[in-house]
């Protein structure tokens, strides 16, 4: 019984912490805006900043959870945030991608035959609608999005994605989809300036 109570308390703590991460402001949270604005300026296209992240992450580029910050020659970008739980708490890993001026799903190296390619996002399993965005949910993804559930959508003829790793503490794809739905609903556009 004690184990159950502890488990219930832990689950409650998880959900409360997630809710407290939400920022009621209309725009990108002030502490995070600088990095996302710099990204938008650099790629010369709108980018999506989240107002809310799965617990315990924040979305401060260059902050304590920053993992990958990569901009390609074609202006496509990958920004990821990671909490790596070395002590057994698990990993929380969220990727944001954008492909300015491109709407097609990119190709990734195939898993078997050298030189072959496959779609980087495949196995669509449904749609999510929030915040004026209609996103397709992809279950099988490649590269940095492998083992992730991924949402992809178009805006102004550009492709955008956000994905999260299915791994403890978000052990089930249904949990990850819930996180992604909240994330999707919290996205705000940051347009390039100057």
């Amino acid at each position, binding site marked *: *019984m004690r*184990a*159950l109570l*502890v*488990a219930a308390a*832990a*689950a409650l*703590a*998880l959900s409360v912490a997630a809710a407290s991460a939400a920022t009621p402001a209309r725009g990108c949270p002030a502490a995070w805006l600088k990095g996302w604005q710099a990204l938008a300026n650099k790629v010369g296209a709108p980018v999506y900043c989240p107002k809310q992240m799965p617990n315990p992450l924040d979305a401060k580029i260059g902050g304590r959870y920053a993992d990958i910050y990569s901009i390609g020659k074609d202006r496509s970008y990958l920004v990821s945030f990671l909490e790596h*739980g070395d002590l057994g*708490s*698990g990993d929380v890993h969220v990727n944001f991608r954008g492909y300015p001026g491109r709407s097609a799903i990119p190709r990734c190296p195939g*898993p*078997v*035959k*050298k030189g072959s390619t*496959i779609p980087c996002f*495949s*196995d669509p399993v449904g749609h999510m609608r929030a915040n004026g965005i209609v996103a397709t949910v992809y*279950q*099988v*993804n490649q590269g940095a999005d*492998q*083992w*992730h*559930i991924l949402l992809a959508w178009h805006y102004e003829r550009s492709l955008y994605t956000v994905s999260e790793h*299915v791994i*403890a*503490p*978000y*052990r*089930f*794809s*249904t*949990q990850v989809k819930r996180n992604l739905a909240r994330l999707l609903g919290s996205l705000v556009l940051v347009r390039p300036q100057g």
Partner: protein
Amino acid sequence: MRLDRRRFLGGAAAAALGGAGIYELVDRLSGGSPARPVATGQPPEQHVLDLRTVQSEGVEVIVPPLHSEVFTATVQDVDLLKAQSRLEDVLGQLDAKYEASPAGLGITVAWGLPWFERVRTAADRHLPFDRRAQKSVLLPNRRFPSDPESTLLEDNDVAFLLRSDRSENIADAREALFGLDFLHVTSVRRGFAGGGFEGKPSLPKQLAMRAGVPGADLIPDTSELFLGFTSTQKAGLGPRLIANHETLGYVDLRGGYFHGGTHMHLSHISEDLEAWYLNFDFGERVLTAFAPGQKAHRNQQTVSQGPEDVQDATRLRQGFTRTGRFGHSGSIQPTSRLQQDVVGPDGTVYPKGTAIPQRADFNTLDNPFAFSANQARDRWSSDPTAGVHFVVFNPTGDDFERNRLAMDGVLPDGSKLEVAPRSRAQGFNSVLTTTHRQNFLVPPRRHRSFPLAEL
């Protein structure tokens, strides 16, 4: 400290189900026992269990028993003739009580090499000999190229396979057999199958979800197996007597003591559901389960593998050259299907393309067993995991080995499709891990109790 969801669910499930185990849910979730043909007496073979078929996506599919259980045991030092008599008494009583169908109870008693070493003189004279392989039909256990080093090769004297739609019938048999004090039970392996034909939600997803198995929510709602495809289509399973030692002419039965017997392989295989559903898209799952180029409509689960659909070695090699990979079913078909028409000793014609192995495998959440007498050796855990207790009957041990080697790309002529063991190019292997293996011989019903002990 954060408690992960798996632990949370595991603890909750354990508390909710108490000692009954998660398999109690099979009866509640399956919506009752399916209709079954009426059995007419006990067949001479122990391994034959007549099952009805239904249509699934236009393919004739066998409805497996809802519950299956295997327990393994070693035999204590006792008077073997008395033990033989006592075991046969118990089995005879169970035969009298239950019809030989899933509506009643199917019992198969299989004996391992350690047992036959105890009756070596008689075994040397009577164990069937595989003429094709020039070996005994009962071979020592071995690992295969895609098996990890950790695969445990077991040494049980005997295995009892119990199959029924009614868990209480299995429990009754278990209680009667566990009461035999000369058997030291080494493992109990439980599981379930089906429950999902004719459009109903199937058991694998429902049970895996309740057990909190990672990846459970990715399993299709109506799939017969955790991996999303139907495995019991009639054309993919050997017909009634084909796995008997004598049917295909592979075996010298010597004095005929084992006429009506067969070979059984038993293994436990764990399945990485997340790797399967998060890394293989539907198209890749189809080609991995079947063959490159296999056509299937989106989310199809029952993919026809009739005699006209199967691959021979030439097609398998061509597909591999073209794509650098081969599928599970396609790789096995050159060895698991008849390559020409065969007439059995009773005049039955088995056409080219007929399946030889009779599988009796079942889904499990055991990790790796429901009970282990040696938890350290078996690496036993109370955390449920998705897997299969693989049970298959072949005419000989070599016939089983040919099929299993084919899974690893070894063709019938011994040549090999060069792929690294456990490569993603090699069928299911990259998402399967075999934890335990053992070969057994299944005597005919008349000699099922301590075979050869009386000689």
